[in-house]
């Protein structure tokens, strides 16, 4: 089957078309293509299919960002309220502190504040006043019993008579013996030192050296003075305290009755 011969009209149209197709043809620009695709996608409500698809994480982030906007706004409001309250709170605190009763206005303060102040004063450790001076005997002799063992005799002891120096040395020796007996061998070297420290003062008294003093001689003298002053209770207390540290030491005969009395 052959094609029909072209009519003169068809030949004329073909000639015109051939010439027309040599004309440069306008084409839509890439920008126009993109604009059309975006406009159509917006019209349809989807994304342009030719654009690179964003991965799921990006889309999820975009959805989260859209959803996060209301949350962000709410969070901003909460933060603003919080900051506002924080700004107001120091003022309230300052007012309360400035109105608090001071120690000067304590007497005029209401009862609860006064009670609190008294309770605090009772609980808080107050600075202790300096202790009263230790009891010193009327004589110039130092209280040998209260001195540390290693300490040398006070200067006043140098002026003491020889028999008193001998008693002082004996008292220190007895105290050192008692401590060494409690501390065992650790203090075994301390007692000779105490004796040596006391020895120079006792050396000018040869009589005292010849007759060894009884242990607790100074204490006994103190007790005797108290008895002479009719302060029997004080004497008994001192004797009792001495006996606690010298359980086996012999007691002078004139003080045995006092010890018997102290036991009862």
């Amino acid at each position: 089957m052959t094609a029909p011969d072209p009519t003169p009209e068809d030949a004329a149209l073909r000639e015109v078309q051939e010439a027309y197709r040599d004309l440069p043809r306008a084409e839509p620009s890439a920008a126009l293509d993109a604009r059309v695709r975006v406009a159509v996608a917006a019209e349809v409500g989807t994304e342009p299919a030719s654009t690179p698809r964003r991965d799921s994480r990006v889309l999820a982030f975009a959805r989260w960002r859209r959803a996060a906007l209301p949350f962000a706004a709410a969070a901003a409001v909460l933060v603003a309220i919080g900051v506002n309250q924080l700004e107001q709170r120091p003022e309230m605190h300052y007012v309360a502190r400035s109105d608090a009763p001071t120690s000067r206005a304590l007497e005029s303060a209401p009862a609860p504040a006064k009670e609190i102040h008294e309770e605090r004063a009772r609980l808080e450790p107050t600075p202790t006043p300096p202790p009263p001076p230790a009891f010193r005997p009327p004589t110039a002799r130092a209280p040998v019993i209260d001195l540390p063992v290693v300490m040398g005799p006070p200067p006043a002891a140098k002026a003491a008579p020889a028999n008193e120096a001998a008693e002082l040395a004996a008292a220190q020796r007895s105290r050192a013996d008692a401590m060494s007996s409690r501390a065992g061998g650790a203090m075994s070297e301390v007692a000779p030192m105490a004796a040596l420290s006391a020895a120079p003062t006792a050396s000018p008294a040869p009589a005292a050296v010849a007759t060894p003093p009884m242990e607790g001689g100074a204490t006994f003298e103190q007790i005797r003075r108290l008895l002479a002053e009719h302060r029997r209770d004080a004497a008994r207390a001192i004797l009792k305290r001495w006996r606690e540290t010298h359980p086996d030491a012999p007691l002078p005969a004139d003080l045995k009755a006092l010890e018997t009395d102290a036991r009862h």
Partner: protein
Amino acid sequence: MALYSTAMAEPATTPPPDSDEALMLAFAAGDMAAFDALYERHRRALYAFIARLLTGREAAVDDVFQDAWLAVARSRAAYRPTAKFRTWLFQIARNRSIDLLRERRPALASELASREDDADPFESIADPAAVMPEVALDRADKAAAIARALAALPAVQREAFLLREHGDMPLEDIARVTGVNVETAKSRLRYAVTKLRAALRGIWP
């Protein structure tokens, strides 16, 4: 198919896959890839048609082109494959062009929208500056001559020729797009071709 053939194949109820109509139905169902395929197929022809139809108003070509595709998108739900997609697309572009011309050149718009055939097409040449050379023999000169002659054609004749050339439409489709009967479409096309051929031979105008 003869150049002046009136044969027009009506699309089947179920268009073959990968046809324009099937793609349009897919796009109506939300498939943007189908739209991209349609766009890629027809973007050059439609743009060239609008650019020639609106000769001298290049600034409006992009807007008409975009509006035409937007109208396709907006009308996608109402689309029925009773006519060829290409015919429908060019008809939309033509209507947009007339809308634009109504705003800027009402006389030209009314000419395009007229359903009456011209009594004397040679008297309705709009562009007096379209001076035809007396002799145009080589190929480049022929192209330049036909460009000037096309611009000098009456709008309805130019439109008929452009629909035939860019839309690859038979007379029935040209008649459908322009809203005239087939004989009127055939007459417009014949006048257009005669003048353009005369221009190529340097005898018009």
